[in-house]
């Protein structure tokens, strides 16, 4: 009984239909939350006493940075499940994650750089978080490159899954080493990226934005997952019925 949900998650038609049913719910709640957070962040929140109006960039930088890591973790978990239980749907989910994660990592890098310019006076600072973000971007590129280089879907799924798992083991090590390296070289006077103390009217838009982006990710994932399932199940009989209906 307790494991039936897990087995059903392994069934492509079940997941396909579930994804179709859930997509509107996640999309609309994400849209509402993000719009509310935008209003809260740009209008209601008072300026920061140190960073002035510039701190409002945190409402886009923090969520994109959060997405970059969360999507990678999700991708690696899905990949591991796919490897261990030979679950096609899990591989499809991992494949769906990569482009989403890569694009948000790119956004986190750009917003980080924009955030950094007025604070540091340069467009790029070898700040540990930005550096880690850059490496994460390369990890995504490598993952997508490997996937794209292998023609057979099944082999591409399984090979890139090994890479995702290896990568997720490495991410904390990379982050630690980069922080360690940075602490050796950084002059203490340089201000670190965005840690204004947030409270009340400044905090809730951030939390709302984080939640909104997370829901947005789920919605995007569900749509892409359906596309990936369609590509993997093209010979299955359930699909013929599904399309006929």
């Amino acid at each position: 009984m307790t494991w039936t949900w897990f087995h059903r998650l392994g069934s492509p038609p079940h997941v396909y239909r579930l994804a179709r049913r859930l997509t509107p719910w996640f999309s609309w709640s994400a849209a509402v939350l993000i719009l509310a957070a935008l209003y809260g962040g740009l209008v209601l929140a008072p300026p920061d006493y140190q960073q002035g109006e510039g701190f409002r960039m945190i409402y886009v930088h923090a969520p994109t940075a959060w997405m970059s890591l969360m999507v990678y973790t999700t991708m690696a978990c899905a990949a591991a499940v796919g490897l261990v239980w030979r679950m096609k749907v899990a591989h499809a989910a991992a494949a769906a994650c990569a482009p989403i994660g890569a694009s948000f990592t790119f956004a986190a890098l750009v917003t980080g750089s924009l955030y950094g310019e007025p604070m540091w006076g340069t467009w790029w600072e070898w700040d540990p978080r930005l550096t880690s973000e850059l490496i994460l971007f390369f990890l995504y590129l490598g993952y997508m490159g490997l996937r794209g280089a292998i023609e057979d879907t099944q082999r591409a799924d399984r090979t890139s899954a090994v890479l995702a798992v290896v990568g997720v083991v490495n991410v904390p090590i990379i982050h630690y080493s980069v922080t360690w390296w940075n602490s050796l070289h950084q002059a203490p006077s340089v201000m670190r990226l965005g840690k204004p103390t947030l409270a009340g009217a400044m905090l809730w838009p951030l939390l709302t934005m984080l939640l909104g982006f997370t829901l947005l990710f789920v919605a995007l994932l569900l749509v892409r997952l359906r596309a990936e399932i369609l590509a993997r199940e093209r010979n299955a009989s359930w699909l013929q019925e599904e399309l006929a209906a």
Partner: protein
Amino acid sequence: MAELPHAALTAAGRVEADGSAAQGTPVLAAARLVLERDLTLAFRRRGQLIQPLAFFAIVTMLFPLAISPELARLREVAAGVLWVAALLASLLALEFLFRDDAYDGTLEQYALSGQPLTGLMFAKTAAHWLLTGLPLALIAPLAALSLGAPPGAIPGILASLAVGTVALSLIGSIGAALTLGIRRSGVLLALLTLPLSLPVLIFGARASELAIRGESIVAPLELLGALAVLGITLAPLASAAAVRISLE
């Protein structure tokens, strides 16, 4: 029908035809054979052994030409130069780590040998280290001297490269296994391997830098050692998994 040889097989499966399990090769002996085979093959093509070393020497030579011949200035970047050159040289030989074995069917035989593939992958990685990492560590002090490092730095540089290249070979073996069966995989291999190698670069370059300055390298060397140990435990698992997938 003669029943004798396989009578014991139903139970154990592993028992060989003459009925004695002792005939099977133990894992360590099998791994030693893999190592021996790779070393023998490498020495049959001695010319190729020199190539990563020559590459390393040329890359380190580029920096004085590109920056300045002043030893005082070079000394400041020497550790970084050594490590970037070592990283690239180690990467250069990786593409061929599994390639020939994949083409001639040796990998298939490894996967079907009944031996744990993880152990065999470890042996292959060890061979790669003995053929590239160790020689690199041995000639790196010479390169360091030419970049203005004091002779007192030699033990530290040697130690940091010897330990660090172990981790590099292990990480590289994963990349090499993942890119098996992909045509023109060189750039992809670099794209996969280099980001994962960054911690090794950071700790290794720091250790060499401290050695050049005449300070204690214990802290970064311990971190490098930790990376190598982590690599020894996990990397062969990942490359064995990747090799099996490449055979599918």
